[in-house]
């Protein structure tokens, strides 16, 4: 409880939490509020916002409800952002722990693979992956995770290198614990906090990458995405700028919210660490 209070003690964290809460609510109520297909035609094409209150944010080039698209887009953005970040953190933590704990040849091989992934620009990697495998939500998540796991892997390895020299790891060996159990049960949980501190950056980057992929037409075609909405609006940017601005603002706010909330979490845990 006191941890929550400490988290909410900075205005940035409160703002971030509010934005994320709003986003989560949008994603959750989207199928209730806009039960039909958000890609179905709902009215006349290119209706400006705030004219017809049954279509508050107007319609796009094909006459689709922009508000419905926005709500359903929140689902995609959140799902992709969280799933990709979770996958990246999982892969990174496992690879980093194995490399740091095993040392020697295993370490060399795993870290050279990490280097290889890091030398390729991450967006290019995601782009190439999706263009080869084909656009679907799962592939997009995999592509983003593939380009984002190297950071967590490096942080986890550095942390594991320091933890594996501690007495309690020697103690675990003395009682005959299997090396894999030592790595994943004794070492990894204690190496996680700095890795998890990366999560807000990764979630934000994942949301942006997903939007960029969709903007380039490599998103899942069966789902509404904010990146796709911006791409749609681009062709009529002069006559109906709101079609690009509305999802663009949503994207900016979401990424901002993730950063602020992430910063708040890091801040509050830092305080807790220095107190103990």
């Amino acid at each position, binding site marked *: 409880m006191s941890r929550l209070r400490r988290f909410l003690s900075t205005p940035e964290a409160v703002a971030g939490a509010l934005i994320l809460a709003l986003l989560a609510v949008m994603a959750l109520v989207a199928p209730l509020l806009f039960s039909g297909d958000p890609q179905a035609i709902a009215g006349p094409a290119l209706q400006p916002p705030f004219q017809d209150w049954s279509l508050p944010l107007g319609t796009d080039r094909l006459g689709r409800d922009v508000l419905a698209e926005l709500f359903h887009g929140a689902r995609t953005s959140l799902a992709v952002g969280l799933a990709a970040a979770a996958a990246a953190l999982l892969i990174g933590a496992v690879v980093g722990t194995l490399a740091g704990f095993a040392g020697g040849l295993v370490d060399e091989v795993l870290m050279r693979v990490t280097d290889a992934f890091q030398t390729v620009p991450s967006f290019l990697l995601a782009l190439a992956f999706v263009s080869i495998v084909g656009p679907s939500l799962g592939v997009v998540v995999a592509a983003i995770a593939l380009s984002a796991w190297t950071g967590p892997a490096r942080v986890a390895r550095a942390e594991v290198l320091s933890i594996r020299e501690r*007495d*309690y790891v*020697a*103690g675990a*060996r*003395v009682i*005959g614990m299997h090396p894999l159990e030592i790595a994943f049960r004794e070492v990894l949980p*204690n190496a996680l906090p700095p890795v998890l501190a990366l999560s807000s950056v990764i979630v934000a980057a994942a949301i942006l990458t997903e939007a960029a992929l969709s903007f380039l037409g490599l998103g899942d075609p069966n789902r509404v995405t904010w990146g796709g909405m911006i791409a749609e609006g681009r062709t009529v940017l002069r006559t109906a700028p709101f079609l690009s601005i509305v999802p663009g603002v949503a994207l900016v706010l979401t990424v901002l919210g993730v950063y602020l909330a992430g910063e708040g979490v890091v801040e509050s845990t830092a305080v807790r660490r220095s107190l103990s």
Partner: protein
Amino acid sequence: MSVLAVSSLTKRYRRGSKPFAAVDDVSFEINPAETLALAGPSGSGKSTIARLVLRLIEPDAGRIAFEGADFLALSGAALRARRARLQMVFQDPLAAFNPRATVARVLDDPLRIHNIATRAERPRRIAALLERVGLDAGLAARAIHEISGGQRQRVAIARAIATRPSLIVLDEAVSALDVSVRGQILELLLDLQRQERIAYLFISHDLGVIRAVAHRVVILDAGRIAESGDARAVIADPQSAIGKALVAATPRLTRSRP
């Protein structure tokens, strides 16, 4: 037959570019229910020997026979199984446990790994172990960082005896404890030795403690054995320069000499 026989043990490290021997041609034996102390100044190789004996690091040369079998020949699952008989208690009881662990988990691990008790039996075994080292069984649910240093070292001893070892390496096991607790822990160790016939490799720089608990002592200097023999005799009349220096550095020992 000896529990542990170490012969010509050598471990070299590199300091900058020039190699030096942290442990140089060290040989000793420990008999069942016997306490052998390793004494010596900082950097004399005491802790390196402990880690070599426990196979936490590998020697460059020498042999280790544990319970009559070549201990260095073991690897993998065979080594892990054998480790049940050879346990260790560390100096800093806080650093020796996973900071997230509870007392119950710390004691559960050896019982589970070596199949000593079924899952259903283990809570009872854990309670018995805690009582054996003079702790309340209710302590099991507490986190390691919630109990006192003396209690933590008792838990460490309980963990070490959980697998019924024949030898426990005590690496400065009482050095970090305050004086009143130290006496109780030494009492507990002597009591366990009498009842379970456990041998101790007792590493300490404190000759007062060594004289109180050890049968024999080996005094190390820069990785080599300077002298060895009956603990009381060596401490009363050290022959080596380093032995004399260690005794002289312990004022109450020189004063108590007749």
